[in-house]
């Protein structure tokens, strides 16, 4: 698990500073469009070795939701 590197990648994808990317950071249709989702799928694949499907990712409303998906997928 490489949380820091992942957070840095996600901050770049969402065009924010890494310090802004706290668990409660909200994902919406404006900041989390299809291009950002493709970036997130790649970042999750690179840092955790998990391929998340687009429906699961689209259902994430916050960074905390996304981390929960990664955690549960890592265990399965």
């Amino acid at each position, binding site marked *: 698990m490489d949380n820091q590197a992942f957070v840095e990648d996600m901050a770049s994808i969402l065009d924010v500073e890494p310090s802004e990317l706290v668990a409660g950071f909200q994902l919406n249709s404006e900041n989390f469009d299809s*291009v950002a989702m*493709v970036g997130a799928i790649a970042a999750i*694949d690179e840092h955790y070795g998990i391929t*998340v499907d*687009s429906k699961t990712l689209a259902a994430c409303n916050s960074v905390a939701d996304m981390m929960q998906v990664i955690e549960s997928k890592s265990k399965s």
Partner: protein
Amino acid sequence: MKAAIKAIRSHLAPNHLTNEQLASEYKGWGVEKISGKTGISVRGVAGPDECASDLGLTAANKLLDAGVISREEIDFLMFCTQSPDYFLPTTACIMQTKLGLPTTCGAMDYNLGCSGFVYGLGLAKGLIETGQATNILLITADTYHKYIHPTDRSVRTIFSDGAAATLISAVDQEEDILGPFVFGTDGTGFEQLIVPAGGHRKRCSTETCVAKEVTPGVFRAEENLYMNGPDVFSFTLNSVPPLIRQILEKSKITVDDVDYFVFHQANKFMLERLRKKTDIPENKFCLNLESYGNTVSSTIPMALELARQNGEIKVGDRVMLAGFGVGYSWAATMLTIT
């Protein structure tokens, strides 16, 4: 007798769509962002009266005029497209006449996208090595831009209208030049890259041509191309690494034994991720879509032609080809450069 690729010629639609043009139309999408993500500088766009078959004819005439083979010697024509001239007749039949090929020539269309070139090679090998044909002209061509709504930047920045003509001939030798092959299909993804209306499942109507705003500033009608980019990306991450493992196993070789890898040139971002995931060295991996774009079934032959011209591949090299996309459909093979 074994099947071998003897020549490739390609043709990009003459109207070019540049990153500068796209950046001027799409707010927040700068030239650098577009080229950085896609790896593409220029895309071909077919004219209003220019069909995929017209692009294919230009590529085929380039090949037939190169003196590699006479028109009379072609005994089979295969046309891979998702943009046919008509529902019927078969576009390849029209092309047979326009190319001046003999009436003893077999001709067929088949409908595949990004996996289509590798499928065509597999079919050609079967026809040649069972003695059914000797010189096969495989033409791949598509005009996706005719399906794309101009505001749909996610697909307009990637896809490109173009064609390639590949000559596959019988050669007198014992050892395989082409193959083995691995094929795969997962039709559960059929709605993720689709033109929903226009076929018989949903005919064109006054409703299907109405473009609706699907996300701010992006409009799409049911007669337009829809791509669920994140789903297509997940599909490739899930399906391509096993495809590469399978073709290596079937060929009884490792990554080190392969001189060059030509994957379907979808976009730079996806290809870079796939390369890292499959542990392929950067210097052996083809990234050749800057001046072509994603021409669907023609990306692999276009990249092969350019790699041969640039000296990236030479006679005797073992090259892996892998196509994957719409369907979902995928295929891979090994090719020895002759």
